[in-house]
């Protein structure tokens, strides 16, 4: 048990240090290439993104609102999610789910949602099978799948 806690702590520290390393990488690239380093981080630097920055702003702001509304509803999946994550605020859950949905592969999305439901620290791109209890794992995957279906319905209705 103590060992498990220690390794969780180490995992959190590693994840923090990785983020610091990524930040320092940006610094080093700027020192090395000057403003041209922008091309390393963006494929369309000279495109019209700055001129169109304001567009589709509303759509993105609505995302969390839609998910929040769903999670507050009487829908059975929403009730199960709330019960599963009773220590988190609805908004927190919605934000984490948005992160999961931004992943491009279906399978990655399901596993990321499962991790959120398991209350894992990080939403990694494909962090599979972190729990030792296989029954829980299957139940969570099932709930993750149902939740993704429900969210897809919500968005379809909205758009």
């Amino acid at each position, binding site marked *: 048990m103590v060992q498990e806690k220690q390794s969780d702590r180490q995992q959190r520290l590693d994840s923090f240090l990785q*983020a610091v390393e990524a*930040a320092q990488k940006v610094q080093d690239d700027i020192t090395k290439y000057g*403003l*041209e380093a*922008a091309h390393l981080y963006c494929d369309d630097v000279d495109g019209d*993104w*700055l001129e169109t920055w304001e567009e589709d702003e509303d759509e*993105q702001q609505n995302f969390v609102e839609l998910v929040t509304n769903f999670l507050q509803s009487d829908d059975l999946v929403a009730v199960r999610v709330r019960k599963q994550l009773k220590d988190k605020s609805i*908004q927190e859950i919605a*934000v984490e789910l948005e992160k999961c949905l931004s992943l491009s592969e279906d399978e990655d999305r399901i596993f990321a949602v499962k991790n959120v439901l398991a209350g894992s620290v990080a939403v990694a791109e494909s962090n599979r099978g972190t729990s030792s209890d296989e029954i829980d794992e299957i139940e969570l995957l099932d709930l993750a799948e149902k939740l993704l279906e429900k969210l897809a319905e919500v968005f379809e209705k909205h758009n």
Partner: protein
Amino acid sequence: MQAKEIKKKLRLLIEEASVIDPGLTKRLEEINRWVKDVKPGSLTAKRFVILFLQQMLQDAEVWLKLKSLPSEEEQQSALTVLNPTLKYWYGYLFPKWLSENDPKFYIWRRKLMAGEFNQEDAKLIGSIANNIKSSGGTIVLRYVADLSMATDIIVSSTQDSPLCIQLTSVSEEFSQEKFDDWENTLIFWAIDRGLFLSYNPRATDFVNQIVNILLSNSDNLSIGSYLKFNL
């Protein structure tokens, strides 16, 4: 990555920050509004905005990971793993910038749009940075430090005491006003010491000389000193 995805990431971080640190949410929202209003005034503006955003997103991510650690003790202990310069940035200056009103923030945009943002000394700062690293020192360079805190580079040497440094070429007309403005800016951010170094780019071996001065002042400059040094 497309610029659109950078924007999406910014929105995600704004939402994520809203449950962890309202100070960061406010700043990121401000940045989003700020970018909306930037009208590219020069060819370099877009490059700068991309790099600024990238740097900001990475720092925001570091900050959120730090603040999400479950106890104050764990957060402090994570900071102590960093080198002293990074520890100063993430443990002091960056959070200070998140929590204070930054009087210079909107001046940057004006400068950028007017094409006044230049990177003339970028190459020199790059050589200085490499040189310091190979001498065993550590550095932090951030646009926020440069533009809001009058700090081109933060340096620590053997004594692990970070020093904020502003570099000026003597060919730029030196004025007391510039020095006073620098000193006031450092005091505003409660940066307790600093070095304002003017150098002559025509002198021989000036990069090595600058590096030696920076490293030695980082070790020896006393608290409360805002030193002007002419090389």
